[in-house]
């Protein structure tokens, strides 16, 4: 058609010809920072990590003279100060799911995919923006939690130091765990699309699955339990490696594989299904 070019470009706005990923990331960042729920959930995760562990450290230090030998044997100063991660993962998990499921709930996904028909790029941009945000928030929170917690423990000379073996890795690892957990949640949310179903699936995998495995014969538990997503991932902020658990980086690696599988499944379904 002779008029083709003319009808395509009427207004003098000219599209760029560079890669689209940076544009889509900018768009996803705008979406991410322009709803209140983002700040509410990230703040909840931050407070959970930065406050819960130090409080537990203070309580432990104050009741230390009465602590049973059994509990003393289990005590590990760095992980205790990072205990808030267990609570923060609820917030990060919900945020990761909502990042995409809310677009399906509102119908916004159609506007998103009409603007960017390269669907895998949309998912990649969401994953990058979300990971940068969760990593920043949770790393800061983990370092605050560690130093505050150790400060409380130091009253009873129970503290550990950032330079002690495995401690720096555990503190950094706490933030890594939460970031990867967010990606697992995003993958599940993309695959399932419904907020409630995806959140139930995520927490089922993290909290219910270990209970089910716990009902198996002990030998089976010893083999299987260490490969469950939560158990494997949380090794990265353990300092003393118990029997029948993975090494820290191996554990995080296994956790990353789960997240990668969830994201890959989400990407395939996102591409194949009607929006």
């Amino acid at each position, binding site marked *: *058609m002779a*008029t*083709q070019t*003319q*009808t*395509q*470009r*009427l*207004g*003098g*706005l*000219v*599209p*760029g010809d*560079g890669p*689209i990923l940076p*544009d*889509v990331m*900018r*768009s*996803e960042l*705008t*979406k991410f920072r*322009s*709803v*209140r*729920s983002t700040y509410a959930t990230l703040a909840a995760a931050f407070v959970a990590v930065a406050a819960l562990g130090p409080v537990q450290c203070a309580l432990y230090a104050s009741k230390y003279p009465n602590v049973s030998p059994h509990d003393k044997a289990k005590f590990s100063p760095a992980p205790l100060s990072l205990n808030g991660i267990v609570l923060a993962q609820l917030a990060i998990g919900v945020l990761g799911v909502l990042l995409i499921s*809310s*677009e399906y709930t*509102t*119908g*916004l*996904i*159609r*506007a*998103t*995919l*009409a*603007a*960017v*028909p*390269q669907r895998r790029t949309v998912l990649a941009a969401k994953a990058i923006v979300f990971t940068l945000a969760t990593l920043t928030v949770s790393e800061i929170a983990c370092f605050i939690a560690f130093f505050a917690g150790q400060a409380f423990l130091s009253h009873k000379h129970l503290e550990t130091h950032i330079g002690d073996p495995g401690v720096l890795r555990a503190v950094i690892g706490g933030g890594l765990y939460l970031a990867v957990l967010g990606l697992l949640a995003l993958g599940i949310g993309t695959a399932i699309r419904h907020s409630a179903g995806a959140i139930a699936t995520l927490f089922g995998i993290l909290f219910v699955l270990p209970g089910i495995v716990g009902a198996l014969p002990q030998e089976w538990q010893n083999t299987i339990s260490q490969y469950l997503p939560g158990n494997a991932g949380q090794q990265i902020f353990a300092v003393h490696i118990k029997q029948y658990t993975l090494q820290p980086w191996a554990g995080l690696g296994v956790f990353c594989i789960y997240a990668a599988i969830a994201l890959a499944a989400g990407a395939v379904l996102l591409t*194949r299904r*009607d*929006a």
Partner: protein
Amino acid sequence: MIEIRNLTKRFGDTVAVDDISFDVVPGRVTGFLGPNGSGKSTTMRMIMGLDWPTSGTVTVNERPYEGLRRPLFEVGALLDANAVHGGRNAYNHLLSLAQSNGIPRGRVDEVIERVGLESVARKRAGGFSLGMSQRLGIAAALLGDPGVMLFDEPVNGLDPEGIRWIRKLLRSFAAEGRTILISSHLMSEMALTADHLIVIGRGRLIADTSVEAFIAQSTKSFVRVRSPQLDELAGAITAQGGSTRPEPDGALAVSGVQISAIGEVARNAGIALHELSPQVASLEEAFMELTRESVQFHAGADAAHTPAAVGQEG
């Protein structure tokens, strides 16, 4: 330019769109008509690369939608005015869409002004009335100043002033040489806005024609005649091959002969005429007639399904 070829979409056992082919060409407003559940929205989603066709092809500017990079520069669409995160304000909603295609920030302010949402641009979209949401959706479609625009029920929820506004807007876009496809169930609105009509019923293409031709082919168009010698006139017209039927007010409805022929028949027979007026069927009547036929045809072949129960929301 939108080209649709042998497009079919099945949802399980239900055929929502059944082997339709048509072009939407630049420079005119093409109306997309059909009863609820006829497959209009499904077709529009397939044009936008949101739903995958079961078979057949759709191209926009000669490419499949998913092959477009930064498509907002070529295609703008309003598919669902409520498809907005309620907690995000209108400005940020538009900004995120603009950024995804590398459209400069200043353009967001321009389209907000164009649709008249300046005063509420920083308010949460969740509190918008349907009319405001429609304007926001239209603003999103305008972001890349595209040559192809699709609007699904654009006048829904607009007040009369808003309806006039969008009608003028669409007409001006077509006059600029853009390709405009609008669906609506408001036939009167379509009669005022569209130049060309695509009519579908139960997923099948019923008509692809100009608005004038669509109305003219309706049997609801007739000539009203009044005369003191009505019986004589009826006889003379029937002799010319026309058909007549009495109107409730004593006039005669004539169809099947030209209006000029009626006048000449009357003169030749020496019959006085008190009224000779063409009655053009409204688009709505023509539409009802045509889709009823298609519905009856299908109901005969497949009596178990009523049209209302079939397919996705149209």
